[in-house]
């Protein structure tokens, strides 16, 4: 035991130190990722704001009203109900086994199968 101890001891010390160092490095890596995400988030907000700005500038109530009067547009009375005859489209089942499994188990057919049908097309 006395002979092995000097051999094991450095390893025993080295491993926690290595783990500690690894954690420290990971913290910095995550911090960098967070910083990048934060600046990306800000950039997306800026883009959203400018899209909103550009859209709103072109779609003011005044312009909408002018368009409506130009096209002689009158909104339909709320009392008039419009019915659309929508035929049920045949379901296209895809090959995604996980989705099929959840379909069967959870009977969540509509969202998944519709999504699959779109994928298929």
């Amino acid at each position, binding site marked *: 035991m006395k002979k092995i101890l000097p051999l094991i001891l450095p390893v025993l010390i080295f491993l926690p130190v290595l783990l500690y160092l690894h954690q420290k490095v990971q913290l910095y890596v995550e911090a960098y990722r*967070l910083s990048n995400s934060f600046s990306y988030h800000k950039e997306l907000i*800026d883009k959203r*704001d*400018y899209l*909103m*700005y550009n859209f709103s500038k072109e779609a*003011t109530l005044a312009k909408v*009203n002018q368009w409506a009067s130009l096209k002689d547009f009158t909104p339909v*009375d709320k009392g008039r109900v419009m019915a659309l005859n929508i035929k049920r489209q045949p379901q296209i089942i895809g090959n995604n086994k996980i989705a099929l499994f959840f379909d069967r188990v959870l009977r969540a057919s509509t969202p998944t199968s519709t999504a699959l049908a779109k994928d298929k097309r």
Partner: protein
Amino acid sequence: MSRKYSKRTISVYLSFVILLFLICTRIFYLQVFRRNFFQNLAQDQRYRLINLQGKRGDILDRQRRILAKSISCYSVFADPALIDNPEATAEAFSINLDLSKEILLFNLRKKKRFVWIKRKISWEEKEKIKALKLDGVGFIREEKRFYPQGNLSAAVIGIANIDNQGLEGLELGYNDYLSGKDGWVRVLKDSASREIILSPQIITPQEGADIILSLDAQIQYWVEEYLEGTIKSFKAGSGSVVVMNALNGEVLALANYPSFNPNELGKVLPKQMRNRAVADIFEPGSVFKVVTLLAAVNEDKFTDQDKFFCENGKFKIPGTILHDWKSYGELSFREVFMKSSNIGVAKIAQALTPDVFSSYLKRLEFGCLSGIDLPAEAKGLLKPIDKWSRTSAFIIPIGQEIGVNLLQLARTFAVVANGGYLVTPHLVTSICSQGFCESVPIKDRKKIIPTSAADRAKEILISVVSEGTGKRAQVKGRKIGGKTGTAQKYDSKIKRYSFSKYRATFVGFIADLNPPIVIGVTIDEPKRSHFGGVVAAPVFKNIAQKVISYIEGAGN
């Protein structure tokens, strides 16, 4: 054992001791006395404070349409010390940001470490500058106030300055609610000056509250369209319109012309920013006869058939001669108002006595603020009764020698339309913050005349529109009441009433609409015609038609 040291050894030893002492003293000085300075210096190098802006709240109409919003934008700055070629940099800015090259060069040659190049630039401009990769140029994220509807209700919403502080209108009146509070986050900086969010210290920013208005942008649009059309067609100087719910004083539209675009403040003249509906006081003329009507019906001294001799259009009163716009002989009480006879109304007011008439002016709160939640309201001009001249008792009842704003007139007509209650006009209905909305309490309405008296006044005002001077305000098949007003303007140069400058007014209500709506229209200095019944009444009619179909359509 004795040792003898040479002088040289001792001197070397002593010099080392002194040196050590000096070093220790220096260390002590740096560690103890300059501790904070060096600690801050080190922290400045390692940490950076990032400003988190507390967004200014939005202003929305009653259908939650956005009328004012804060959007993020960038401001570009430069550090002249880091710019090697100011000429080229100025050239690049000048082309991409549409700025004067000379001014840019002047700024870039300053011996400063920070100069603004342009504040609040567009996304496209920022991307262009970023792509140029200019040395010593940076961007600061800021907030910009944006008014998506442009001119619409500009004077009501007001403006905020470049630092997002309210300057006019609701932006100023509700600045404390709308303003956000900035927060900060302290992050580490690496050797390349990149920010690392590692155990950041954060002071969370607080967003400003959103305010929801009683204003309806669609009604506001129609009102502004008709107002502008009328002002242009009659070549008038300016005009205002207010549309108000007579039951609770909610303002559905408040328009002024000339107006302005708050997104282009550089092009706006101060007079365009004036909210004339609340800040302008004027002599109302015949439209003010509604006060005499209310006093007369409430005092119950006259029946509808009582006759008044209108002196064939000329009536000598103390100090002047009173004229009617058309000569009348005998008119019944109802006809006096239908035909808007100045002489008849003056005689009715005399019969009531000046004290009684004056008490109704106080009851209707003339000479006081209407209480609307907008800054810069003018409270009007009303002389106390002890300062009335002998003429005053004859001419105040016909709307001269008194100054009112349009809102005060509208709330007087609301008394007639709602059964005798004096309401407080208001614009903000609720304030929302972090998902929670709280209604702004409405000031209690005051019962100032009985419902029976208000109903009698209402019937007479309806006949003014159906058979009298306000025929052009009539909406087919609807009960419309109102009163026209054509006021000569006082000319301070000639010190008498002008024969060329008039103010045409019509204030009325839609009696059979739920809720009853009061619409007040005033047009200043119209040219082609100056009669309230010709200039202002058709604006009322057009707005009333739209409001009826809009409100009844929504109800269905």
